[in-house]
């Protein structure tokens, strides 16, 4: 049975923890709003890009000389997994759900006899994946020092990926990140970025043929495809960022609530014990007086 003093100390410590989690929740909420705005601001560009590329690639579908980024290398032996996670923990299941998805994917590919290479973005994913896939990790990017994600950051990642691709180091690249659905729901997602895939079927309705291209269709495609990789990565990073703060916010909200419950329980037992002690002292005094 803990003494009164112990209980008092515990209550004080839980209260301190609660203050911290509450502050973290507030901070996460403020950052979430900013991250969400950034993710929304990036949407028009990505959507346009996707539309333009979808129509261009539809026009180039049968072309044997289409850029490799579009048509692929024709093999799928070597897979590159780009795993984007957060820099920090304390965000509920955010990091672990992305990592779990990536790990399952990697194990499945390995079981099929494929080669798996991993590029991690973010410290958390790197730390955890390094334990199981140490020899598979080819590169590691961290944004620990970066306050506000900019396109240049995504471009940096994209360049590394493209460089590996142009050296023929892999055939298929898949990007792992958490798609932001709402503050309480973030969905770990795998998205194939190389060779490029477009799900926009309506864009392929033949309007592409009417376009005039300057300089030429091929050159534009060659210019756009690498840029598209950067845009996709950028979008994933922004979504990830928003998801991270969303997850952190709800995790901290839970923690604050749990701390509140804990404080209630501890206070109750503290009061009971205090009461018991007072009663005990009274009995002692009374029985002492009676004995006289």
């Amino acid at each position, binding site marked *: 049975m803990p003494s009164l003093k112990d209980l008092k100390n515990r209550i004080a410590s839980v209260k301190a923890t609660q203050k911290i989690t509450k502050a973290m929740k507030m901070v996460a909420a403020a950052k979430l709003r900013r991250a969400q705005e*950034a993710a929304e*601001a*990036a949407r*028009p*560009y*990505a959507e*346009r*890009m996707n539309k*333009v590329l979808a129509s261009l690639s539809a026009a180039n579908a049968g072309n044997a000389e289409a850029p490799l980024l579009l048509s692929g290398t024709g093999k799928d032996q070597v897979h590159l997994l780009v795993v984007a996670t957060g820099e920090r923990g304390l965000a509920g299941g955010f990091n672990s759900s992305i990592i779990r998805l990536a790990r399952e994917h990697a194990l499945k590919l390995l079981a099929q006899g494929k080669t798996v290479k991993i590029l991690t973005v973010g410290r958390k994913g790197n730390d955890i994946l390094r334990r199981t896939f140490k020899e598979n990790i080819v590169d590691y990017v961290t944004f620990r020092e970066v306050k506000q994600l*900019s*396109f240049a950051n*995504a471009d940096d990642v994209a360049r590394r990926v493209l460089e590996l691709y*142009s050296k023929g180091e892999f055939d298929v690249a898949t990007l792992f990140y958490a798609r932001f659905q709402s503050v309480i729901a973030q969905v770990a997602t795998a998205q194939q970025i190389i060779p490029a895939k477009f799900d926009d079927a309506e864009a392929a309705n033949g*309007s592409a043929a*009417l*376009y*005039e*291209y*300057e*300089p030429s269709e091929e*050159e*534009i495609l060659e*210019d*756009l495809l690498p*840029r598209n990789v*950067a*845009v996709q990565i*950028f979008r994933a990073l922004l979504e990830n960022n928003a998801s991270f703060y969303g997850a952190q916010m709800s995790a901290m909200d839970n923690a604050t609530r749990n701390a509140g419950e804990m404080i209630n329980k501890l206070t109750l037992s503290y009061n009971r014990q205090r009461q018991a002690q007072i009663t005990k002292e009274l009995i002692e005094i009374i029985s002492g007086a009676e004995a006289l």
Partner: protein
Amino acid sequence: MADAFNFELVSPERLLLSEKVTEVVIPATLGEMTVLGNHALTMTTIRPGVVTVKLASGQESKYVVFGGFADILPTGCTVLAESALPLSDVTRETLQARIEAAQADAGAATDHEHKTKLEQYLNELTNLNGAILPA
């Protein structure tokens, strides 16, 4: 008066402008081009330069763009810039920083074709520097 059409200037980070305009001058790779309403479907890449927009209200605004492409439809025009800034926000330092970054890239490039491209980009940036910020 020319027909007004929709013009959008977007960079990966945000939507800079979405307005009704009567005339836009785009620094296309093959030379400056002026887009008016009912333009034929065109897609062109752009080089670093100044986009001049004449709004339907008669005002004129200028933006500096650093590469990207433009999608022109009879009903509107969208410029997808790799990066874009209002002209008034561009300072000698920001341009200089970009020029230095481009120089470093060009120096590091090993692939010949890639290097030529980067050098061309660098040239355009330097020209731009001279054009909008006369010494």
